[in-house]
């Protein structure tokens, strides 16, 4: 089994890969470490056959993908346990789960799953991979990819501490809310969106975290079956 650091990297690479190509710079930012550290660690991952480096980018090998899903499974199970059984609030469990995830053996994972009544998703709504390394496909695309004039619906908010989700909720934007994109500033600027009678400017970084249905595609994961 790879070390805790390598596991963190695999997790970060998998998550970054959900939005497209992965560059080492993104990992440095996501993990809060310097670029040389990333390069060194990526070298270690590559010697173990967990990743490939196609033209400067980073991609998981089949083995690497399995290892990444394994760590994500442990992370999300740990979060579920912290919220459901220990009663921690879901905006504080991410960091705690990062500590716990490295200590869960397959035996304990299985016991946790039974105890938690086979949860499908973590408290933030992300699917939990199965022990065989399968994961439910996540639908939707980030709001920032939508063009001016697009009519979309919010699917979920990618937000580990829940702060953005609850702030947007107080403004009337939750999963299921219809959003019209009125204007997209050029050069990767902010978006102007219309929700009901109100208009909001959303920075590109915020719009990246809001996942919406692609225009014209109906939402397949309805309210009530998310968990």
């Amino acid at each position: 089994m790879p070390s805790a650091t390598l596991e963190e990297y695999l997790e970060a690479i998998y998550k970054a890969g959900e939005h497209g190509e992965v560059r080492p710079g993104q990992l440095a930012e996501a993990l809060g470490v310097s670029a040389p550290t990333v390069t060194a660690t990526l070298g270690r991952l590559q010697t173990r056959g967990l990743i490939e480096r196609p033209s400067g980018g980073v991609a998981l090998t089949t083995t690497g993908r399995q290892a990444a899903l394994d760590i994500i499974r442990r992370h999300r199970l740990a979060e579920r346990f912290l919220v459901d059984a220990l009663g921690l609030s879901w905006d504080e469990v991410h960091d705690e789960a990062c500590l716990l995830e490295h200590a869960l053996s397959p035996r304990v994972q299985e016991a946790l799953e039974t105890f938690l009544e086979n949860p499908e998703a973590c408290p933030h709504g992300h699917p939990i991979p199965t022990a065989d390394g399968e994961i439910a496909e996540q639908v939707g695309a980030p709001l920032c990819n939508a063009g001016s004039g697009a009519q979309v619906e919010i699917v979920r908010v990618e937000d580990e501490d829940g702060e953005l989700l609850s702030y947007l909720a107080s403004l009337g934007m939750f999963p299921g809310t219809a959003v019209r994109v009125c204007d997209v500033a050029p050069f990767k600027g902010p978006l102007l969106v219309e929700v009901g009678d109100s208009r909001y400017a959303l920075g590109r970084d915020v719009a990246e975290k809001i996942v919406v249905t692609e225009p014209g595609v109906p939402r397949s994961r309805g309210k009530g079956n998310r968990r």
Partner: protein
Amino acid sequence: MSRSCDERPAGPLERPGGEVVIALAGNPNVGKSTLFNALTGLGVSTAHYPGTTREISVATARAGERLIGVIDLPGSYGIGGTAEEERVARRALLELAPDVVVVLLDPTNLARTLFLALEVMDLGFRVVVAVNLADEARRAGVRVDCARLSDVAGVPAVETVATQGVGVSSLVEVAITAAAAPTPEPRTYGPDFEALVEPLVRRWESEACVPLGLTPRAAALGVLEERHEIVEAAPESVRRDGVRIRRAVASHFGESVRVHVARERHGLAGLIGEQVVVRTPRRRGLLPHDLWALTTWPWTGVPLVVLVAASIFGFLFFVGEFLAGSLSALWERWAAPLISAGVGSVAGDGVLARVLLWGFDAGIEASLAIGLPYILTFYFLLGLLEDTGYLNSLAFLTDRVMHRFGLHGRAVVPLVAAAGCSVPALVAAGDLPTRRERLIASTLVVFVPCSARTAVIMGSVGHFLGWRPTLLVLGVVVIVWLAMAFALQRLIPGDSRGLVMEMFPFRRPSVRGVAGKAWTQFREFLFVATPIVIVGSLVLGGLYETGWLMALSGPLEPVVEGLLGLPAIAGLTLIVGMLRKELSLQLLVALAVATTGFAGASLAGLLSETDIVVYALVNTIALPCISSVAVYWRRHGWMPTLAVLGASVAIALTVGAIAARVVPLLGLQ
């Protein structure tokens, strides 16, 4: 549980006096502060919780025969979240326990603003809603049926136009009556949800007491929605039940209690809105949309920013200078003789009298001579821009650039304002959403040369050396600012929340409203800064008149002469500049005249060309003026203030020392 029912945690805020205590809540930009100003006069005190910068104003006011207490909560979209303004508003509500909460609604956006009212009602407070901006809504073809709103929402509703004082006295009457009424029946959020919540309400009913004076239902919802203060105050067994029920709600509805209840509240607010808002079809002017495109499309938006900024500074430069000149003339003609006669009768005409004149003549004049013409005018112009909705477009346009400084679009307002005067800019920086952004923006504001500092550069380098050296000095100042911006982003830990900003349509500004607001902000400045300026002037006067100022130049010699190559006496004027940046130059010219003995008002007798450049650089970068230090210190505490002061001196000395060695090599003329 150790705490008794009535006991509330002691906070730094005092519940105001008065028979009835009214709290004002509302979304940003619905006219809450205007209403607060209309209700109260002088005697407003503001305070903030440790670690937060959102201020809460508290005042006592007279309403007919009665004395009422008024609490102005920070503007927020909700009171449930973790955003600072929401936490502060919630904490103030729970700790100060107002008898009634007036929630301001925007008729053109009734449903969204009603959400906050529903949240406050769910905390068990008596609520009165004020449908404000009624005049503006009518122009937009929107009317709210207040009687029907009262019926449907189950709370008294009053129509107001706070900017003109319309409906304010009847609002107060209604609020006073409502304060005596029993707490209204709580709202319910669907049978399934209520069935899940019910056991927790029962549980609270069986507890010996419910904390913070809450009703059992409010306390139950508070625990389920994870309102920090209520969860903290709940006994262990209740918390455990809460966890179980949160889980049950999440598995039944597929989302957390917080999101589910927020969704229900928005749904309910939307339903109420549909029943009470009457829309009359209006010919929709094309103008606002065109203005939006014009102001946010980079190829037209950027030139427009430059144009707007240039006209503001032009206006300040000419109108401000004219006002300052007239004010000083008036002061010399009327106030100065009176004050000197007064001082003369008390202290004779010795050293003491001259020191007192420094403080009470020159000091007050200094405070008024920047305050009225520059700061008040600037507040007014900025308020006018804000009221039109142009600042929205500006934030949208500049969001991406601001990201490079760890900020986002909203921070552009204080940074632009800073080129006029740091004081209003620092106040504006206090409205940014996270502590990190406020700290970065405030610090950058201090390093933007304000109009007084620009005037010194113009008056020294520009006047005596010409435009090329002036550009050189300004260029160096810009480079220092950029370096500071990149450094701060790395030095100050944390994350910015990103831009989430409500956009208001363009509208015609209300001059009366803007003037009132500008005056209120200015009044705060006057009360904070004037005493400090007077004391500072007295100290300085004392040093000057006793001759100790010259003695003090001794210890400064190694730095001023050795490092910067300036005469020691010029170093002293730099310190004096802390009182008022342009005072430094005035003093320097006066000293030059005194030393060289001819009244040509030239610096040449005292300073070489290089010296003038070095002097202008150091004066611009080092030690922000005492008024802005006072405001910065009030907002951020003494540690960051000392750090900023120290950094500014260190950077100024470094830049000055380099300039003193490099400028002669350039050959300026």
